[in-house]
């Protein structure tokens, strides 16, 4: 069964450092997403990406965040200068179409900022 894969599973970084979280969406999917989940809380939307550009972003997704699809398979989330409050699980998701279809989620990257 096709799946979304994310690496690394756990990333520890010092405050102020840059991190890149990586995702390989399902190969024939066209829409890609990043979500964040602070421990014990709900899953929050960060950004959606379609046709090599951001289609929608939330208030959380400020200038410190960026996304990129550098090749035909990878989808990355970069945080330029991490803050303590960026510590969370980050989930990548992909969908075949933009609405009315299931979003498939990866297993997540646990980011710990110290």
């Amino acid at each position, binding site marked *: 069964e096709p799946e*979304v894969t994310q690496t690394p599973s756990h990333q520890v970084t010092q405050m102020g450092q840059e991190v890149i979280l990586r995702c390989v969406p399902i190969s024939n999917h066209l*829409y890609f*997403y990043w*979500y964040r989940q602070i*421990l*014990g*809380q*709900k*899953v*929050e*939307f960060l950004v*959606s990406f*379609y046709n090599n550009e951001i*289609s*929608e972003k939330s208030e959380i997704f400020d200038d410190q965040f960026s996304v990129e699809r550098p090749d035909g398979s990878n989808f990355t989330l970069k945080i330029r200068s991490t803050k303590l409050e960026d510590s969370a699980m980050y*989930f990548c*998701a992909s969908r075949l*179409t*933009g*609405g*009315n279809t*299931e*979003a*498939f*989620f*990866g*297993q*997540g990257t646990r980011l710990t900022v110290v």
Partner: protein
Amino acid sequence: GESVGLHLPTLSVQEGDNSIINCAYSNSASDYFIWYKQESGKGPQFIIDIRSNMDKRQGQRVTVLLNKTVKHLSLQIAATQPGDSAVYFCAENGQGNTPLVFGKGTRLSVIA
């Protein structure tokens, strides 16, 4: 009830009983809904979906009910098993190519 910070609503059920998990969604224009299951340390896993032109949909041991009048969604799990213990989230999709928006989640604990 509402969840604040680390305090998710919790539902405890005996193994073999039926479970009902409720969700109030926010956008009256939402036309697609999904229930996800999230086990500890894992990503959300699809359980069942429903479109707004339906009010009920059944899967294997699960049923989703949609009441658009009061913007309410419920997930019924028949014969709950220990493996059903997890956090359950409803997610709604507005019209068009909009991202899924998640609700606050309910923790289901199954007592063996």
